[in-house]
């Protein structure tokens, strides 16, 4: 199974890999949600949804149903420290 933003744990960072353009509103792209940019999960709302993200320096919240459309590569904190 592909890793998506919905799989991130709180505080985890990842790089956006790919997504289906049809499933993502243009507004989200314009706010910086584009392949190659970093995303960090900052907070999860009570009841697990929506997610509060830092995407490419923009702070925004999206619902799980959108988040699980966006595939990411998690940045391993160990490799980052090297």
């Amino acid at each position, binding site marked *: 199974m592909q890793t998506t933003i919905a799989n991130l744990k709180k505080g985890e960072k990842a790089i956006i890999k790919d997504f289906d*353009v*049809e499933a993502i*509103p*243009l*507004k*989200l*792209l*314009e*706010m*910086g949600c*584009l*392949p190659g*940019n970093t995303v960090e999960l*900052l*907070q999860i*709302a*009570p*009841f*697990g*949804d*929506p997610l*509060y993200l830092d995407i*490419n*320096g*923009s*702070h*925004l*919240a*999206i*619902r799980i*149903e*959108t988040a699980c459309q966006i595939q990411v590569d998690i940045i391993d904190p160990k490799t980052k420290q090297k």
Partner: protein
Amino acid sequence: MSKETINVALIGNPNVGKTSVFNQLTGLNQQVGNYPGITVEKKLGFCKLSNNVKANVLDFPGTYSLNASSVDENVVIELLLNKNHSLYPDVVLLVAEVENLKRNLLLFTQIKDLGIPTILVINMIDRMKYKGISLDIPYLEKELKTKIALVSSRKGLGFDALKELITQYESLPTEPCLNASSIDEVYFNNLRKTFPNQSLYKLWLVITQDVNFVGLNRKVLENNSFIKTDSELKRLQQKETIKRYQFINDTLKIGLKINSETARDFRSKLDRVLTHKIWGYLIFFFILFGIFQSIFEWSKIPMDYIDQTFATLSSLANENLPPGMFTNLIAQGIIPGIGGILIFIPQITFLFLFISILEESGYMSRVVFLMDKIMRNFGLSGKSIVPLISGTACAIPAIMATRNIENWKERLITILVTPFTTCSARLPVYAIIIGLVIPDQRIFGFINMQGLTLMLLYLIGFGMAIFSAFVLNKVLKLKCKTFFVVEMPNYKLPMFKNVAINVIEKTKAFVFGAGKIILAISVVLWFLASNGPSKNFNDSESILLSKTENKRLSKIELKNKVASYKLEHSYIGIMGKTIEPAISPLGYDWKIGVAIISSFAAREVFVGTLATIYSVGGSENDETIKDKMRAEINPETGEKIFNFASGISLLLFYAFAMQCASTLAITKKETNSWKWPLGQLIFMSSFAYIVALIAYQILK
């Protein structure tokens, strides 16, 4: 030198302090209106740039890009595409913010493509040091092909330099900063060949969205051999966005340096508490509770004062002006009418004050985040919270605020249920009735019972809104794509100037908007109450005197009796009497009936109507309206008209009934159909009648 006036447009993302920049430039020299035909707020201000140059400053609605997704954003594009518009800008000030420069620049590169002289205004520079940010201005100016003004709207820094830059707008470069058409050379070359006289970027905007472009029909654009499907266009838009971000990222890599990430601590700490699964909700609840308690407590004294002042004024007018029609009109029609408007001011001011503080501080977005999952159970969105809370001021701006809800079904439901929230027009009705039937006592020494009742009424309004949303969600069968994106802005201390201007504007709009109706209705009511059709009205004194039991009355008692007899047989008395059978099971007499009829188009007229009716009927004018209402007695039962049962029944009736012509009009406008406003009217009003009936029958 010649004097000239130039058009300056303020454009920028939401939450960059664009309005503060506007306020700094124009001070109180602003006009708020609407764009013709649509209900998007249009803010125009005036500013003196130098001795010879003045500027019209137009504050556009906040937008993330030129790819419009709402009516508000459409306004921006349509004006920018129309060179013949009287407000077409000579120069655009693109307001950006230090911390979100990357995202703000996306819109900047789009505006640059339109070929309008553009100044990049970077706001909140006072935070740069604290955030460890440094900017290479000469490099950025060269790469972005613009002039940059660094300002702090909070500290008022940099505005003289900005004004200086604006006056030199003619020397600004107008070429775009990147070549966006390289995303599909073939397609754009074809476009260029077919429409050699048009700007390529303008063509692209018209093709990808539903906007009007003067001198060019959309149909013409679609009738060509190289047309693309919607999905191909969306892919191209994505490519375009990526292309623009590449340019921005490359530019900022050199032009912007961030040294530390320490500054995020405050934001994330506050987020952790405010969106916490227990603390978050508790804090939200206490904020609401505090707001409603203080609205009632703080506005009590000024309201009583206004009430008292107008009662005195009315009696002064009566004593000092020569008796006659004209004096009656002033003392019994106009003065109580104006009093009925002014008495709103304290509560409305406090309400707008709290709402604008919540929005300015950035807290409102956290509430959206906190409530989204819960609200979705009822077919609403977290974003419905904003309309539901601002609905406590007025349903009209609240319904307009639903525009940023992306999902049509969630938006429709929000529009339909918003009028259940307790708007400020209900407040004076509640205030006067609560004052009459709920004792002014405290529970546990600090909770005011009247304030508590008010809070309960707000909760009932919310509860009913949520419950109807739940029902509508089950009943309405609509399939919609759901999108939800909400920006979480940084926390900011609300700026006094912004809040103050906002509160003044909103209160003014409300008082003058509603005020005209209330005053007009008061005068009409006065006329209807002091004239009557039949012989009964004109000969009331002799009719009463002919009855034996009246012969022994003193002069004053007789005068009172004549006055109330006259009122009963006036036009208005007849109207009230006609509907009395329908409303007496709810505990109302014909006078309340008149007030309900007259407040059918606008509920705030209720208090003004009662004021007029009791002024006409009563003998002494220096009694306050509240005193007169308290003294009112049902002639059949001998009980007070405004007792606990009828009071509660009235409160509930006003809580649920749809008595606002303006709300119906805005629902029609936003849903584009008469079906929804009619449904609101019928459902809400009949529900109100039934609930009020049940309440009175149980309590009496």
